[in-house]
């Protein structure tokens, strides 16, 4: 029982990172039907930004988190404007390859500029571990969970309550119609990239604190996992991405706990395939039938 509780906590903290990342995938996909392959690398940039501002400017955690979000939002907007916007009316697979190119560029650019070494993330918050009913919970885990949930709540409010959020939803349903009612397509898409990338930036700083190590290739695997999470939840669905993130996080820790860590990723993919076979558009996705 204690181990289950322990794994639940570990799984939830890992899952909240995946969830934050999956949100970016799902929002971008929802609005321009692009698998933004470079999203995991934005998360890496967030972690590096956190690393430098804490080490060089000696800022506290909150400032590091917020500035990383702002920085990543800007990067996301710039990438969209330069690399994806010219391809908006091109075959979708072309935009996907461009996204892969951007991902390679960010990974290798960072390796070139700052070396490919792994480095220790500064412990800006001293780790405190609480023992509670035989389980160990660290303040970092609590911080990750609370921050992630708070950010998801804010995101949900932005999408549901603000004018820009309404525009985002309109564009994701029908871009042409949205333009006809006076929605600025470019602004809305930029805004979506900004929001998604900010979430990834936050996730980067949080994972730095949690795992205490960062490197230029750190975004690759979590990026793919987060995309899988978004697909499981039903790509395009915001609550789906959060749910998918938590499912993957919990699944991974559970598989590890029963001693099958070598098959950790395989289990995730098996679950993905099974879910897709039962629900071809993910848990919250709408299965759109083509009209004849």
């Amino acid at each position, binding site marked *: 029982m204690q181990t289950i509780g322990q794994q639940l906590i570990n799984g939830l903290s890992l899952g909240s990172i995946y969830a934050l990342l999956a949100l970016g995938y799902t929002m971008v996909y929802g609005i321009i039907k692009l698998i933004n392959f470079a999203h995991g690398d934005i998360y890496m940039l967030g972690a590096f930004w956190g690393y430098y501002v804490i080490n060089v400017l000696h800022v506290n955690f909150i400032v590091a988190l917020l500035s990383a979000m702002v920085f990543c939002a800007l990067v996301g907007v710039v990438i969209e404007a330069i690399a994806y916007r010219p391809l908006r009316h091109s075959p979708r697979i072309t935009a996907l*390859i461009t996204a892969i*190119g951007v991902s*390679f560029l960010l990974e290798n650019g960072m390796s070139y500029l700052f070396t490919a070494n792994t480095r220790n993330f500064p412990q800006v918050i001293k780790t405190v571990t609480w023992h509670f009913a035989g389980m160990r919970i660290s303040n970092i885990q609590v911080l990750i969970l609370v921050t992630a949930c708070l950010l998801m709540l804010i995101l949900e409010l932005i999408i549901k309550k603000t004018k820009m959020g309404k525009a985002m939803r309109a564009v994701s349903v029908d871009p042409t119609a949205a333009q006809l009612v006076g929605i600025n397509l470019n602004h809305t898409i930029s805004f979506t990239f900004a929001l998604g990338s900010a979430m990834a930036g936050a996730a980067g700083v949080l994972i730095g604190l949690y795992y205490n190590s960062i490197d230029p290739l750190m975004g690759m695997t979590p990026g793919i996992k987060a995309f899988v999470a978004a*697909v499981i939840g039903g790509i395009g669905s915001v609550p789906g991405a959060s749910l998918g993130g938590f499912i993957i996080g919990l699944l991974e820790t559970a598989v590890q706990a029963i001693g099958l860590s070598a098959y950790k990723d*395989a289990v995730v*993919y098996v679950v*993905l395939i099974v879910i897709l076979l039962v629900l071809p558009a993910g848990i919250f996705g709408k299965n759109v039938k*083509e009209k004849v």
Partner: protein
Amino acid sequence: MKTTLKANAVWLGVMILGFVVIDAAEFAGLVNTFIENMLVTIGINVILATGLNLIIGFSGQFSLGHAGFMAIGAYATGIITQSIATPLGFYLSMIVGIFVAIIAALIVGIPTLRLRGDYLAIATMGAAEIIRILINNLKITNGAAGLFNIPALASWATVYTIMCVTTIVTVNFIHSRGGRAVMSVREDEIAAEAMGINTTRWKLAAFVFGAATAAIGGSLHAAYIQTIAPSDFNIMASIAILIIVVLGGVGSITGTFVAAIVLGALDTILQNFGTLRMIIYSLALILIMIFKPTGLLGNWELSFKRLNHHKEVSAHE
């Protein structure tokens, strides 16, 4: 019929000429190990990408798991030729690889090909990762360390010949009743069904065909490079093949050749740039996509039959 025969003769001539040119260059000492490596990599990439192009470009199904089937071929060769280190053993291992890849493709394809677009991509990617993780944890495949000292049973000539054969077979399939049925699935699944085309069956046919050619590519890779490890067949490997297909032009086999050659040459030239190599490579990729969104050749195909036809028409005028 006559023009078909003529065009086929021209193609045969081109293939023999290619062989003779490379052979002469080898003989004259123009080809060092470095260049031979490049040529072989191009050849294997052509085999892999042609098969993937059949799936993506002709049947319109987005598969992201090509490296998984390649791994099956590579490991079949790696394991079998260590016991039977003869050319016969190599071809036997290739056939075993094809066979296992076909079975794996059926297991993966039958359930997942119902999915559409990106969902299919992510499911096939997952399936390929499952294959890789299994190889990573099995004893017979020597786990994460992989296999070393695989007998060198494939020369550049083997790769060249098999590249020609797989290309001929693929192109012949495309220009047949089956190939047209496969293309109708890409064009409009609902209309194809209404015309009596069992779309599930033809999608699966293209998928299995592609998987078989991937296994051939894997076999050659193992026998030429002589060292394989599970990490050679990860998601990035599948993406590398996808890049060749899209860069050349989805639905153009000629484009696949051009892209494989361009990327192979680019990779070799960029070796001198050290760490800058991947930065230049990724920038090139982004720029080509932005300025040539349908790939280098779009869906254009080189056809001697058509060239001939044009000549005859202009002669008449």
